[in-house]
């Protein structure tokens, strides 16, 4: 196959701008799938993704397009995840392409993620084809969006294609643009194998499967491959591509996009961003840019009442086969017993893991409030990474300084809400770096802000303050020293380690007060009075009491009712399974997340 007739591209867009629908239409138009076969949003395979309407696993699909020049082209569409948690995965997917469709919603205009993804694509030297989607909607304003594209991204408005993926408008124009504007891949099939992994998943039959872009050389069943980062070697059992069904090929060679299976048992052996080469004839250099996924957010995961540590461990291990981004290690909490400290790419990633553990792996879990990674500089020159507030040394005399991760936050908002958003950012310890009008109605703001403030309740606040119109994106920029203290929470005078958190000193009092009030609301009344307190060290700064239960009675219980009433009481007990026994107090899952709900 001549590389001249191959095009590798991605679609980049803000959440909800219609990426999956566009992907469906391209598949349909090129005949890769018939309309009947086309389940809505073909590319999103996981149940949760479909439910949430977002894409978390990227995949690559091969289709054939007979262009107006009468030539048939092989198109590889590489899907990218649409959430800030997965920005590294996005950059790796883009590295596998020569071009990208930049999709913008005609009613919403450019949003923060659009800009962030645009710059990622520019960094990879991709040809960018701007597409304005949803032009069929009554609220569509394509002219305004065209101006934005020109002013903000510097792309000529003549290049813009108007489309409605839902209505099938503009699909052929897009395909023609892909063929004409995006260059064919370069690469030399004669050189040693060099293939970039941009996604992986676990398949019950094939084992861990790597999705790759082959830059040089070729790979086929029987090839002995080696992973650059680990040196591990495997023998290839199958190569192919999704059409969109998994279809075997004889080989993948330079310029191709497809999958490699090699009886690999653990998806963690094929990390996104790593390079595969031929063990017998290795390439001298990997594709640049690999870094192992680095969790930014950690939380404790513990079994709920009625589930064991072993059951949770099995579930996590099985889950992790399919998610190379999570990290976990056992930890013990005095309050919650044996469990795990689990690292996530971000909050959405955490929610997905939580849901899938419960839904697909059948364990009921308690998750503690997520915390960012803190860096503690000790007076003896040592540097400690703190993934759990309880790891902070009790003796503050040893501590030189505590540093926390900062991000550069980009916010795009209609100008009417700028005031709201700016005060929110200020409250969240943000330092303003940029304020520009993108057009007379839209403002772009940049702030440097502690990541801990972003994971707190930033999302809900931003959406609430802007009626849902503002969008944001962020990237890690480094650790900075701040005046931080540890807030301890006590229940009936006992410290509950899983509820403690690290907070800026100026906010400690307010957070402590709000936290105990919230806890008072979410902790159900118990047989005995419960005292909830928060303090810095052991100095109490806020306190509340939860009055004891007074009524839980089976009013009527006669001969015909005893068995039934016993069962009803049993049901009540089932309802308490999500509670975690802490001393004499039963704490619900919500209690562990209240830390996130206070500002």
């Amino acid at each position, binding site marked *: 196959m001549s590389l001249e007739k191959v095009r590798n591209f991605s679609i980049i867009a803000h959440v909800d701008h219609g990426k999956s629908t566009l992907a469906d239409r391209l598949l349909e138009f090129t005949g890769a799938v018939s309309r009947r076969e086309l389940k809505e949003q073909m590319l999103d395979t996981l149940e949760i993704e479909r439910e949430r309407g977002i894409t978390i696993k990227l995949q690559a699909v091969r289709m054939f397009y007979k262009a107006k020049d009468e030539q048939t082209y092989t198109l590889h569409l590489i899907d990218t995840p649409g959430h800030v948690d997965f920005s590294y995965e996005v950059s790796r997917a883009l590295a596998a392409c020569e071009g990208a469709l930049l999709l913008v919603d005609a009613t919403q205009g450019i949003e923060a993620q659009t800009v962030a993804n645009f710059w990622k694509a520019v960094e990879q030297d991709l040809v960018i084809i701007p597409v304005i989607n949803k032009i069929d909607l009554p609220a569509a304003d394509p002219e305004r969006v065209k101006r934005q594209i020109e002013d903000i991204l510097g792309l000529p408005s003549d290049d813009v294609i108007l489309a409605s993926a839902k209505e099938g408008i503009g699909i052929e124009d897009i395909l023609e643009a892909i063929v004409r504007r995006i260059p064919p891949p370069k690469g030399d099939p004669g050189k040693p194998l060099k293939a970039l992994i941009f996604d992986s998943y676990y398949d019950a039959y094939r084992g861990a499967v790597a999705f790759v872009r082959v830059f040089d050389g070729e790979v086929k069943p029987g090839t002995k491959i080696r992973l650059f980062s680990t040196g591990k070697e495997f023998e290839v059992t199958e190569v192919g591509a999704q059409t969109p069904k998994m279809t075997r090929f004889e080989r993948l060679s330079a310029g191709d996009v497809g999958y490699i299976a090699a009886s690999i048992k653990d998806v963690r052996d094929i990390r996104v961003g790593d390079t595969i080469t031929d063990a017998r004839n290795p390439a001298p250099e990997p594709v640049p840019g690999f870094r192992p996924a680095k969790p930014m957010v950690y939380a404790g995961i513990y079994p709920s009442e009625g589930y064991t540590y072993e059951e949770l461990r099995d579930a996590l291990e099985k889950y992790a086969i399919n998610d190379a981004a999570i990290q976990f290690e056992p930890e013990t909490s005095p309050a919650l017993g044996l469990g795990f400290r689990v690292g996530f790419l971000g909050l959405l990633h955490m929610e997905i893991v939580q849901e899938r553990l419960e839904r697909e792996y059948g364990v009921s879990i308690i998750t503690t409030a997520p915390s960012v990674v803190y860096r503690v500089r000790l007076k003896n020159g040592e540097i400690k990474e703190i993934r759990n507030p309880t790891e902070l040394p009790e003796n503050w005399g040893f501590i030189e300084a505590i540093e926390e991760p900062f991000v550069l936050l980009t916010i795009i908002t209609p100008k009417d809400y700028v005031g709201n958003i700016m005060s929110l950012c200020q409250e969240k310890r943000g330092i303003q770096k940029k304020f520009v009008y993108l057009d007379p109605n839209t403002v772009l703001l940049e702030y440097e802000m502690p990541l801990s403030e972003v994971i707190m309740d930033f999302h809900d606040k931003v959406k609430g303050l802007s009626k849902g119109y503002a969008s944001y994106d962020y990237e890690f920029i480094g650790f900075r020293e701040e005046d931080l203290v540890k807030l301890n929470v006590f229940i009936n005078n006992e410290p509950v380690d899983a509820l403690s958190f690290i907070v800026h000193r100026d906010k400690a009092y307010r957070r402590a007060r709000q936290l105990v009030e919230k806890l008072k609301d979410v902790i159900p009344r118990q*047989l005995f009075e419960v005292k909830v307190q928060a303090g810095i060290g052991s100095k109490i700064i806020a306190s509340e009491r939860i009055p004891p239960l*007074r*009524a839980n009675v089976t009013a*009527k219980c006669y*001969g015909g009712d005893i068995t039934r009433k*016993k069962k009803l*009481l049993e049901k009540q007990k089932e309802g308490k399974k999500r509670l975690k026994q802490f001393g004499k107090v039963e704490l619900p899952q919500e209690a562990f997340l209240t830390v996130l709900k206070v500002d």
Partner: protein
Amino acid sequence: MVKALYLHIPFCSQKCPYCDFVSFVEAPLDHRAYLELLLRELELYRDFEILPESLYFGGGTPSLIKPELYAWFFKELSKRIDLSHVEEASLEINPEDYSLEDFSKLRDTGINRVSIGVQSLREEGLRALGRKHTVKRAVETVENAHRAGFENINIDLIFGYEGQTAEELKEELERALELPIKHLSLYLLTPYEDTQFGHLYERGLLKLPSEDSIADMYELACELLEGAGFYHYEVSNFALEGFQCRHNLAYWSHEEFLGLGVSAWSFINKVRFGNTRNIRLYARKVLEGKKPVEYEEVLEGKELLYDYLFTALRTSRGVPKELLRGLEPELYEFFEEKGGRLALNRRGMLLINEVLLRLKKAILL
């Protein structure tokens, strides 16, 4: 030996929104035919030693059946079992059904205790509970029963309905105490899942008083009734001296009892067994000469102990102290000790479910 006999009468003229008992507004067979089935069912238990000291006709609405029919039924019953030891024979009565004359006839059948479903002594209360009768009619019914010669009269009241205040409950109870009653059952309204109230409650369409006002009402009621000489002998039951319901006490002290009729339960030889809830199936089985039993709970060891605590702790008599050796010391504040027995105190009774859950954990784990 079975000393308590329960007979379930599954007929109702309407389904009450809070009721989770088995009853039929339109039953596929008439009253006499149903009573005949009860007799046939009884015959299936010939192997058992049945020498009742108490009888209880519960429902449903037993008062939908005319006294004449009960007279016939008692005659038939006495042909099959020895009724000479019966000291208490209760019948549940809906205020809309019986006249003075009916009560007089009932008096001659063998029934010596009536339990009248007054439910509320405020019109607003009756409306909130979805009841059709009036306060006046309920009061008349109680008085008629008394005039006809019934000495042992119970009324049922429900508290904790939508909008009720402690002051209003107090008025109702004071009114109740003016009636010629010997026994009062006061039930907390509970919106069970499969009832109309349950559905409304789940969807937030039924607003019940807060936990604290419920508890205040309960304490007030206990205070008031005990002040009037009504002994609080079970979670929801109060009686003047000598008028505790011996039939119900059998349920709460692990005495054996036999239940006849659709959905009725029995407890014999440490087994709880229950009849089908399907009236057609019930009839077919009985006619075929088969026991219509569909559910069974065999109680052994710790389960038996828990079952005993589940029932006996409802009473002010409580349980022998030794049985609660595993009791967490902090739970003592919900108990009182008398004569080597431990019984829930007033606070404890209102929290019986919590206490039982803790006990169960302590016993069974």
